[in-house]
């Protein structure tokens, strides 16, 4: 991990107010992303991973904890500084059909940021810069005058990425950015993201439910369950020596192309559904579905600690099991 992280979340809590109750969608998460690094955030729906994305980019206010960018707390910055810093963190959404204003041409979508922040690109260079950006994300110059509905899903996601790049960000938060795309097109976008990182040194916080995609793209991985991090560590540690029962179950349940080679292998299938975040279980949040749960888990919440597996795990019975590599 680099010395000073680009982004650091310290005990972040984000709460949604419902009619009668409060939901701690994110219930105390600490996480960092270094410059030029790719950190994956995996978990199932409702685990709070999208709320983290929204909190980082400022669409939602945290109710406790800190979001630090280059060591500075975004909550305490003067408005002007904040606007400048916000520019350095961009978000790419899941649905490329909904995240582009249907009434704007591609050129207008790309130039918008320069209208908002006049210092980035001088006006006389706008058209040239639009052409450069389109080329960089694999689109043609004549695409500049078209509207979003004239593009396919993959091409729209390229436009979204180009739009994020217009403000020269240092961190791009990708919230399920390739989940809506078909396999063949998804690979194109993943390759594009890697290429951009190589060329521009941008860091990614890559949020996804797809363990394969995260495995492919990320350096480090955090696994979330019901608003908390269950396990975090380098990719190889998480995928080959998962120590949290949830991570083990998740990896076992995730369908992979290679699965046909070993159809009868032992499979951890969890029972039941994720409990409501309105009333999370006492103690360890995973205990209601855990195959290792004991009495202690109901009373005592496990801390996210390195219990000898080489990476922090939030489980009393953390026990790294080496996942056998599938024969090729």
């Amino acid at each position, binding site marked *: 991990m680099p010395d000073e992280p680009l982004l650091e979340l310290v005990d972040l809590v984000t709460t949604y107010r419902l009619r009668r109750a409060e939901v701690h969608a994110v219930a105390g998460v600490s996480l960092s992303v270094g410059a030029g690094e790719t950190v994956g955030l995996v978990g199932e729906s409702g685990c709070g991973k999208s709320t983290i994305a929204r909190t980082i980019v400022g669409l939602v206010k945290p109710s406790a904890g800190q979001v630090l960018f280059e060591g500075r707390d975004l909550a305490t910055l003067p408005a002007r500084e904040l606007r400048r810093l916000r520019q350095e963190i961009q978000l790419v959404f899941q649905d490329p059909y909904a995240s582009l204003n249907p009434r704007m041409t591609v050129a207008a979508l790309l130039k918008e940021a320069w209208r908002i922040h006049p210092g980035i690109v001088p006006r006389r260079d706008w058209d040239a810069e639009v052409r450069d950006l389109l080329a960089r994300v694999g689109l043609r110059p004549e695409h500049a005058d078209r509207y979003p509905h004239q593009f396919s899903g993959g091409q729209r996601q390229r436009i979204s990425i180009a739009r994020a790049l217009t403000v020269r960000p240092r961190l791009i938060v990708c919230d399920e950015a390739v989940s809506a795309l*078909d396999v*063949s097109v998804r690979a194109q976008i993943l390759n594009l993201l890697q290429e951009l990182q190589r060329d521009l040194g941008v860091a990614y916080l890559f949020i996804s*439910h797809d363990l394969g995609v995260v*495995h492919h793209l990320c350096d480090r991985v955090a696994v979330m369950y019901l608003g908390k991090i269950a396990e975090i560590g380098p*990719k190889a540690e998480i995928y*080959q020596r998962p120590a949290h029962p949830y991570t083990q179950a998740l990896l076992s349940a*995730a369908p992979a192309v290679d699965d*046909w080679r070993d159809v009868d292998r032992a499979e951890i299938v969890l029972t039941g559904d994720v409990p409501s975040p309105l009333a999370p279980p006492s103690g360890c949040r995973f205990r209601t579905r855990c195959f290792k749960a004991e009495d202690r888990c109901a009373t005592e919440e496990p801390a996210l600690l390195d219990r000898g597996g080489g990476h922090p795990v939030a489980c009393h019975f953390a026990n790294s099991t080496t996942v056998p*590599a599938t024969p090729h």
Partner: protein
Amino acid sequence: MTERSPQAYGQPPRDGGLLTRLLEVDGLAVEFDTRKGPLRAVRGVSFHVEACETLAIVGESGSGKSVTAQALLGLVPSRARITAGSIAIEGRDVTGLSDAEWRELRGERIAMIFQDPLSALNPSLTVGYQIAEMFRRHRGTGRAQARRYAAELMAQVGIPDAARRLDDHPHRFSGGMRQRVMIAMALALDPVLLVADEPTTALDVTVQAQILRLLRQRREADRLGMIIISHDLGVVARVADRVAVMYAGQIVETGTVPEVYGRPAHPYTLGLMRAVPALRGTGSTLTAIEGQPPDLAEPPTGCSFHPRCPLARERCREEAPEPRELSHGRAVTCHFAEEVLDDA
């Protein structure tokens, strides 16, 4: 959990263990009427399903896989029509059936589950009522008896506390439990064929594993012929015996899962396999298939995959390849399949 015997619902027992061809689709073509003219969504698709077997139809959006599934149940959208080919269920040609005849067949012999069970269930009726309705309408079963069957079915598809949950409405169930309800309804009348259109796409990974396991169990227990429509190569690898890969309205390759996954014979299949990130081992580079799927209103000349194919040459632009058999039960629609096999 007690296994439900077919006799319990007045059905004759099925033959034991022999291969039975439940579904035979031959040269199926479906066209949509659009402003730009006819759009050939499905073009000459042929496949078959035996009892106790799972066939997966895998393809990307717009490949025609869902339209094919709808055609199997006589459910093609109103602006589409079957223009060629035949569909035979248990040897009976069903292509010309009237709406009334289809209604009788659906549920009884062939049933379907959908990606979004919430929109397939009636939100204002309890799930118990909706399952019991199947028995009451098709079998004339009495109210109390139908309710007992419904509870039994719900228990069989793994809904905990089934007897008490009969009176809950669909929105009270989680996504996974709703899909179980759909499966219970689909299997209520002991159909021989089950078509599952993206059955786990809307579900979380751990819940998906539960549903896939349930489908496998029911297939064994009821000797079902199953057709799974999916875009997810991993899901298909887990549940299917055989696979048909669709591209631009055609089946480009069929075979058993080990054959097709282990040694793809079509450049598109090979491209798909190389475009999916692996879950284990070290991160490898992905090879994307360049370009976009074709516009079916104006399909390319010759082979419809040629604009994206790394092996394409003159012949592919001019001459559309016909499906040809490589070995028993293994077919491919490519002029140069042998080169792909060598490459893989």
